[in-house]
């Protein structure tokens, strides 16, 4: 089963310290070593991005930053694990890695990817 974990926080311009980045990379390596890491990445500031919308059949683009957004996506990881609980455990470890090195609130959405097996009904 594949799970995508989506990390969300307020966009304050704070960047993760090298120490935090190292912890996260180490955790990623550990997950790779255990055969469960499919891919991970961090996202740049929304100022470098844009939004595309489809409303009433019309497509519009708006450049970042997304100043009105309460929280934005800062990074993601994709895990290939035997159960949801395993994805939650890796997420717990990810959040734990931030303790003492990141003082803002973080939220991680853990979502099953609908690309799994026929037996999962997709």
């Amino acid at each position: 089963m594949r799970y995508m974990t989506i990390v969300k926080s307020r966009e304050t311009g704070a960047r993760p310290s090298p120490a935090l980045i190292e912890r996260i990379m180490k955790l990623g390596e550990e997950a790779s070593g255990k055969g469960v890491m499919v891919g991970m990445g961090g996202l740049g500031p929304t100022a470098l991005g844009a939004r595309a919308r489809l409303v009433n059949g019309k497509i519009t683009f708006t450049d970042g930053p997304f100043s009105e957004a309460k929280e934005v996506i800062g990074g993601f990881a994709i895990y290939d694990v035997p159960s949801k609980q395993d994805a939650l455990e890796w997420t717990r470890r990810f959040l734990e890695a931030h303790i003492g090195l990141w003082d803002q609130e973080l939220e991680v959405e853990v979502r099953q990817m609908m690309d799994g097996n026929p037996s999962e009904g997709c």
Partner: protein
Amino acid sequence: MAIPPKVAEAIDAVWRIESARLIAGLARLVGDIGVAEDLAQDALVAALEQWPTSGVPDNPGAWLMATAKHRAIDQLRRRKMLDQKHEHLGREMESRQISPEADLAEAIDDHVGDDLLRLIFTTCHPVLTTEARVALTLRLLGGLTTDEIARAFLQPKTTIQQRIVRAKRTLAAARVPFEVPARTELAARLGSVLEVIYLIFNEGYSATAGEDWVRPALCDDALRLGRILAELAPDEAEVHGLVALLEIQASRIRARVGPDGEPILLLQQDRGRWDHLLISRGLAALERAEAFGGGGYGPYALQAAIAACHARARTPEETDWTRIVALYDALAQLLPSPVVELNRAVALSMAFGPAAGLEVVDALRADPALATYHLLPSVRGDLLAKLGRLEEARVELKHAAELTQNSRERKLLLKKMEAL
């Protein structure tokens, strides 16, 4: 006390994530994977007793390791007191220059990669039967329970239990050292590891028996084992070759089964349902295997290269069959086998017409190794049908349907026969 389901699930997850490294670390210290597994299991039991009230600790892996370490030391002391002759364990540890009082958890941390590699070479040791290797590897490396293995292989739980117990006994009796084999043996021993992982994958990918055509959970287990091995032994081209093969084959799993569970063969698959994330991972692994150059492709890399030809083709018509024939030619030289030859025949028929394939297939009919192999009459039936020899084709497809052990496949073959 009843354990709340959430906590029980969390403990299961921690066990799946940590057990292999726990067992591997302990096995290096006590020199016996059976003892190591018992110690790790004891630590798990302690977790089940304590975590429901204390909560899951911040670093559950370290907690389990510390607990197992204490049990190991207790056991050592008890053995020393009970019977001086059984100082074996203690001596083992001394000879490794690790005193039981030292912080074993730290000693273990320094060697995680090496220990896991030792563990996988031990569970795939040639003194064990293939079945035993598969069961022991899934259990100790994959963190599967005996129940899960039994379900995956459609065997009674007691059969798997006995198989694992016997395997551990065999390893102990043969005094198989817990180590990575020496350079001279490495290629052969690595071959056994790759074979076990591929066997696990194949049992999931085209189940040899039972009602279901695929059992994706087994494929996932094999894929994880392969990825672990690639991290542990990144300098072995064939490890990357195997991972590439598994990733690309796994990319087709959801396209291989129709809505009613019926098998869909490669050329009929909806390629939009292929998993492109796995394909790109597979192609990247193949590139890593190819980067070794030198001795050219090994058998797994060759098979991966064939799978990659299919993965790169957006439609069946775009398939580079000439290249596939060339790759099968190389594979047949490296790994001469009637099954490879049969696949080469299919590729030949696609590249140069059914008659070219039939010629090779007909030569295989005398091979006793294929006498009960359902894919021989199945392929022959297809080729005859393409050549318009319908009566002969029906006979072959019927024969194939009688030979297959898989009920889904049998239905497909009979359907094909009736459609002629």
